[in-house]
C-alpha cells in the first residue's frame, strides 16, 4: 500500500477517510476527548450522500468510528451503502452492542477490520476506565462472535497510569482470542481544546519500562535509514504512528508530517471536514459544500500541504528526528503552532534514541541556544505497537 499511499499523497488524491458517525456513546471513558451530546448529527440521507461524494472523489479506505457507531439505528443501512460503493471498510467500536447476528451482518458487509477498545485483562481496571460496570465482560463476549465470522479484530489499548502495566495481559488476551493488539499512550485534550483528559496521560519517565520491554521491542520496525551522526547501529526503536490512520504504514510519506490533508481526511458527525480528528483546522462542512470543493479548494488544506518536515523551523534541523513521531495536530493543540516542536514529542524521541544506543540524544527543542518558542503542556503522541501484517502487494499485469 505504501506505493499507492505515497502516490496519492504526492498528488493530493483523497484515499482515506475517518468518518465519525456519532459522538454519542454508551461508555464514559475517563480519557475521552469528545462531547457526547448530539448537536445535530447528519441524517441518514445526508450520510448516504456524503458517502457517494467520497466514493466519487476516490476515497478507498473508510473507517467508521465515534462515539459508539452501533448507537446509530441506521448503522447497517449506512454500512450497506458503503459496501455498494466499494469502500474498504474498517470499524472502531467498544463492541458492547454487538450480537451474533450483528457479527454475521458485518461479515456479509465485507468489513475488513474491527478495532475494539480494551483497557485491561482485569475487568475492574477496564470498567473503572469506561465507568460502565460489566463492560469488560460484554466487550470481550463480542470478540469470539466476530472472530468466528472470520473478521479481523484488533484490541486497542490506550495506556494510562491506571492500566499502564496491563499491556502484557492484553497481549495474552488478544492471542487467546485470535485478535491482534495495539497499545497507545496518546491522550489528547478535548476537541474544544480543554485539557481535562490530560490528567490521564502517562509521563515519559513512567513509559520507560514499556519502551524497554523486549517483547514490544521485537515488534518495532527499524527507523528509516538516515545519514546523520546520531544514528547508531540500528537497534529496534518504537514506531509512533497515528491511531487515527487507516492502518497504512507511514513510510509512504517522505518529508511530509503525516497523511492528514494529503491523502486522508476526517469527517465529523455534523459534516465538518478536517484534515484529521487530531488537527482541528476546519476545511468546510458537507451540509453546505461538496466534498470535492472542500478537498481541492480549502485554504487550510492548501496551507497544510505546503508543510515539509525538513523545513520546520525547529524540528527540521533536529538530529534525532528519525526517532520522533511529531504530530502536527498536537503541535497546534498543545504548542499553539502547527509547525512547532512540543515537549512530549521531544522527550519521547530522546527516550527512544537513548534506548537505541544514541549517546546523549538531544532534540532541537532542547539543544543549547535553541531559539524556538518552548511548547507548553504535555502532548499526544501515538505509540502504536501492533501485530498486524498490514497490507502487502500483489501485482497483476494483463
Amino acid at each position, binding site marked *: 500500500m505504501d506505493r499507492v499511499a505515497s502516490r496519492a499523497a504526492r498528488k493530493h488524491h483523497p484515499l482515506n477517510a475517518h468518518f465519525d458517525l456519532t459522538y454519542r456513546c454508551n461508555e464514559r471513558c475517563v480519557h475521552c476527548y469528545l462531547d457526547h451530546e448530539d448537536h445535530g448529527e447528519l441524517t441518514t440521507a445526508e450520510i448516504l450522500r456524503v458517502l457517494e461524494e467520497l466514493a466519487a472523489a*476516490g476515497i478507498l479506505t473508510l473507517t467508521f468510528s465515534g462515539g459508539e457507531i452501533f448507537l446509530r439505528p441506521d448503522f447497517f443501512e449506512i454500512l450497506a451503502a458503503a459496501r455498494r460503493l466499494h469502500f474498504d471498510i474498517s470499524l472502531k467500536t467498544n463492541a458492547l452492542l454487538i450480537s451474533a447476528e450483528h457479527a454475521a451482518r458485518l461479515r456479509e458487509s465485507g468489513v475488513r477490520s474491527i478495532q475494539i477498545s480494551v483497557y485491561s485483562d482485569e475487568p475492574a481496571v477496564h470498567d473503572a476506565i469506561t465507568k460502565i460496570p460489566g463492560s469488560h465482560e460484554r466487550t470481550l463476549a463480542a470478540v469470539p462472535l466476530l472472530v468466528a465470522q472470520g473478521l479481523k479484530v484488533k484490541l486497542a489499548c490506550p495506556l494510562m497510569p491506571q492500566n499502564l502495566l496491563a499491556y502484557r495481559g492484553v497481549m495474552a488476551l488478544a492471542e487467546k482470542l485470535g485478535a491482534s493488539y495495539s497499545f497507545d499512550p496518546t491522550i489528547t485534550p478535548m476537541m474544544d481544546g480543554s485539557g481535562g483528559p490530560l490528567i490521564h496521560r502517562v509521563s515519559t519517565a513512567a513509559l520507560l519500562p514499556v519502551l524497554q520491554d523486549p517483547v514490544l521491542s521485537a515488534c518495532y520496525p527499524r527507523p528509516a535509514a538516515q545519514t546523520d551522526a546520531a544514528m547508531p547501529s540500528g537497534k529496534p526503536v518504537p514506531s509512533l504512528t497515528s491511531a487515527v490512520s487507516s492502518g497504512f504504514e507511514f513510510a509512504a510519506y517522505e518529508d511530509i508530517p503525516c497523511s492528514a490533508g494529503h491523502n486522508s481526511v476526517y469527517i465529523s458527525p455534523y459534516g465538518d471536514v478536517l484534515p484529521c480528528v487530531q488537527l482541528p483546522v476546519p476545511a468546510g462542512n458537507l451540509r453546505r459544500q461538496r466534498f470535492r470543493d472542500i478537498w481541492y479548494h480549502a485554504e487550510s488544506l492548501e496551507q497544510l500541504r505546503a508543510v515539509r518536515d525538513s523545513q520546520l523551523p525547529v524540528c527540521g534541523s533536529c538530529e534525532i528526528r528519525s526517532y520522533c513521531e511529531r504530530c502536527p495536530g498536537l503541535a497546534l493543540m498543545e504548542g499553539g503552532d502547527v509547525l512547532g516542536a512540543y515537549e512530549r514529542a521531544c522527550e519521547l524521541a530522546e527516550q527512544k534514541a537513548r534506548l537505541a544506543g544514541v549517546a546523549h540524544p538531544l532534540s532541537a527543542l532542547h539543544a543549547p541556544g535553541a531559539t524556538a518558542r518552548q511548547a507548553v503542556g504535555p502532548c499526544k503522541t501515538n505509540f502504536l505497537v501492533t501485530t498486524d501484517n498490514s497490507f*502487502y502487494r*500483489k501485482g*497483476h499485469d494483463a
Partner: protein
Amino acid sequence: MRKTIRWQKNPIVAWRAIDGETVIISPSDNVMHELNETGSFIWRQIDGRCSAAEIAGMLAAEYEVPPEDALADTEALLQQLAASALLVTAAAADGAAC
C-alpha cells in the same frame, strides 16, 4: 458443449480507479492488488455479462493488440483474479448482452 463462464466482481471486495490504475482490496485475506492500465480496462468490463472472449475483443479494439494475444492475456488475468476470490461466477442470464 462447453459452458461459457461469465465473471462478476466479488461484491465484498473494495476497489477504486486511481490515476488510470485499479487498487483492489480483499477483506477476506487483507491483500491489496493493483492492476495496470490494461488490467484496469479488463476490470471495468467485468460485469457478469461479458465472456472472456468478448472482453478480449474489446481489449484488442482498444489497444490494437492481436486478438489471440488479447484473449490469452484476458483469460490469464481472469483466472488470476478468480483464484484470489476477487471474482465470482455470475448467475447465467440467458440472452444477456455484453
